[in-house]
């Protein structure tokens, strides 16, 4: 049941070298650099995003994800969810407005899988980048690299999938759109949505808590995914796998790594989900096909290279 969470708002990633990271996120993926704050963090966004930023890069000595935040329809929803998160047993922290420049107060909370999440409702809206809000052209001509349109979702690895499912569905009002069940009916992957998208966040079962698998950015067409693959080769960027199609969500995709070892995805297409749809199920004996629809084989790196 919808509880007023709309979409992923921003993700903060740790990188070993901020300038090298910008060559990846800005010059290769094609995000727009919109701001640098006093702490040296760099803010970026996909050109179609109306809010001021959706990706924050922070230099640190351990790559990975600091947190991912979801935008809600109102401050009243944030208050309501805060109470419910406390009742659920989360450790809740109030982050004041402008801790991230241009963003209102956020409510940060931990999760059974060990990841940090946030909800917020207010962020400066600077409009789509490079096109007018009135009589807009189709796209801006100044885009670079893969020309990613938006930050779309992230995939997280952790142990207590059942716990984080309860948190996201019962408290935050997400639906489970797709899942992978093992031979005992136990869930080893879950794709959750707060919208019509096939996933706004996904989890895969893994013995360690709090691991980051990838941040994903949306492209419009398969042709653009192939062009992204060309750019990955031209720039000697570390490739994981693809271009290919997923069985899960049926999106068309390519995976590669940023210079600090955080995995990125660009993808297009994919299924949609309405709240009355039962989850799509894949079985673990078809896991290869569920993840990589064409080769039907998992590569070890995809399962084990995490930050």
């Amino acid at each position, binding site marked *: 049941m919808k509880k007023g969470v709309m979409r992923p708002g921003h993700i903060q990633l*740790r990188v*070993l*070298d901020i300038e090298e990271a910008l060559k990846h996120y800005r010059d290769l993926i094609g995000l727009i650099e919109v701001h640098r704050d006093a702490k040296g963090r760099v803010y970026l966004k996909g050109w179609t995003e109306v809010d001021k930023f959706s990706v924050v890069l922070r230099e*640190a*000595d*351990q*790559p*990975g994800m600091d947190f991912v935040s979801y935008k809600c329809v109102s401050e009243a929803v944030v208050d309501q969810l805060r109470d419910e998160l406390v009742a659920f047993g989360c450790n809740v922290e109030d982050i004041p407005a402008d801790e991230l420049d241009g963003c209102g107060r956020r409510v940060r909370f931990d999760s059974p899988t060990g990841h940090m999440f946030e909800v917020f409702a207010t962020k400066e809206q600077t409009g789509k980048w490079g096109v007018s809000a009135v009589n807009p052209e189709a796209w801006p001509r100044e885009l670079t690299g893969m020309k990613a349109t938006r930050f779309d979702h992230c995939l997280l690895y952790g142990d207590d999938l059942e716990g984080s499912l309860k948190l996201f569905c019962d408290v935050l009002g997400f639906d489970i759109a797709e899942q992978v069940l093992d031979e005992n009916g136990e869930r080893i992957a879950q794709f959750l949505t707060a919208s019509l998208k096939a996933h706004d966040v996904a989890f895969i079962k893994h013995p360690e808590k709090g691991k980051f698998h990838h941040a994903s950015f949306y492209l419009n067409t398969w042709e653009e995914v192939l062009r992204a693959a060309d750019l990955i080769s031209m720039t000697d960027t*570390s490739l994981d796998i693809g271009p290919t199609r997923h069985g899960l969500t049926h999106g068309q995709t390519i995976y590669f*790594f*940023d*210079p*600090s*070892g*955080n*995995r990125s995805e660009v993808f297009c297409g994919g299924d949609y989900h309405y709240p009355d749809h039962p989850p799509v199920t894949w079985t673990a004996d078809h896991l290869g096909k569920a993840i990589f629809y064409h080769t039907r084989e998992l590569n070890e*790196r995809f399962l*084990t*290279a*995490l*930050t």
Partner: protein
Amino acid sequence: MRDRKLMAKKFQVEVVNCQQSFTALEGCSLLMSMERSGTQAIKVGCRGGGCGMCKIRVMKGRYISKRMSRAHVSESDEQQGLVLACRVFPQEDLTIESDLIVDSVSEK
């Protein structure tokens, strides 16, 4: 730029635990050299110092290294030659041991 790779100094890398060796090029990460040589002596993950899959011990030989994730290489690891092959640049012939994917505990 032309043929820079061909002009680059070459170093021999012995991987003792699997009795393999490959040629490393100056200016190229140890892991990248291994991949280019077609050898499979070290696990390949992110190639960016983040995942820890390429952890090795350098037993002999000089090298320089770039920043590595502290989740996988602590300061004392680094002093003992426990490093990530994707962040290591050989300066002379090396003797190494691979397949050491054991994490050191550390803070973010």
